[in-house]
């Protein structure tokens, strides 16, 4: 249910951008969801619809998924995040704070925890459309 807190952040940000851009009605909001955070889309979408303000009355929320990938800073290896390889507790820890991946995941080639998260970390507001 911490999806609710993230949805609140998305609505706050979309509202701020709509104000800055002078949008009277917001028609579409696209949110990119990183695979690592593993947001439960049903709860997240429900929270968005419950939290939306009046000028979001007819807003369509598009949720896109971003696959997670890593690049090792030591050997340069790149690889994909595989949630299925993690136990439930670890997957849940990464769900709450994706950076703890550095605690549990190592480069499959050299074993280093020093890697860059290239994509698929968390929730990102990708675009907003509306009418002025």
């Amino acid at each position, binding site marked *: *249910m911490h999806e609710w807190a993230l949805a609140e*952040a*998305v609505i*706050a940000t979309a509202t701020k951008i709509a104000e800055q851009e002078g949008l009277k009605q917001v028609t579409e909001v696209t949110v990119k969801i990183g695979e690592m955070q593993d947001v439960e889309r049903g709860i997240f979408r429900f929270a968005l619809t419950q939290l939306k303000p009046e000028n979001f009355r007819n807003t369509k929320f598009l949720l896109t998924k971003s696959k997670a990938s890593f690049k090792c800073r030591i050997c340069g290896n790149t690889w994909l995040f595989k949630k299925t390889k993690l136990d439930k507790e670890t997957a849940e820890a990464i769900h709450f704070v*994706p950076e*703890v991946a550095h*605690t549990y995941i190592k480069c499959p080639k050299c074993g280093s925890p*020093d890697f860059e998260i290239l994509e698929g970390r*968390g929730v990102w507001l990708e675009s907003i459309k509306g009418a002025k």
Partner: protein
Amino acid sequence: MADPRVNIIDKRLKNIRRIIAVSSGKGGVGKSMVATTLALSLVKRGCKVGLFDLDFTSPSTHIILGAEGVQPCEEKGLIPPVVHGLEYMSLVYYSGNHAAPLRGADTSNALIELLAVTLWSDLDYLVIDMPPGIGDAVLDLIRFVKRIEFLVVTTSSQLAFETVKKLGGLLQELGVPVLGVVENMKMTESTNLQQQTEALGLKFLAGIPYDPKVEAAIGDAENLLKTEVARKVKAIAQTV
């Protein structure tokens, strides 16, 4: 296009009256001990208090508190568990007893995440145990927490105090309130650091003598509050 988390932080902190970052230029000066004892002392004074361990790579407040078997409750966000009367938040809930090897950008991301999803109740004080130095956590707190106030901890060593000059100078330059400086683990009656602190235009809050009993009180909050360190920190808690 935009990181949504940064726009919800003000709301998350709006019902907290004072936010105090316990900071230091160098590690090993007893910052976590001062932060934890300060938070516990404020609870004893009848205040509603939160303690947030932002020293992600070397957290220790959970050990000082003896916080075991507790986890945040997930309810439209993360509700910190109450430990010895404190609402207590730390990355250790998720990193466990393992190392968390985080670079600067990762530290910032984890900090923003926890600020964005932690649901503190109405608090009188949120005490933040900072990592040492003038790094990402200091800069991020100044950026995201507009009402932040700093309490700076040093030892009597001139080496530690030199970093206080830098940290204090930066905070003064940025107009960030500094509650004062605490000289921890004092071995002599010297007032040298107090004079140097005051010469910088900073308030000298207290000199805390080195107290060998503190080590035995780690993990035992009630005993910790009986130490000489706690007696001095309680006096600080009366003034903040």
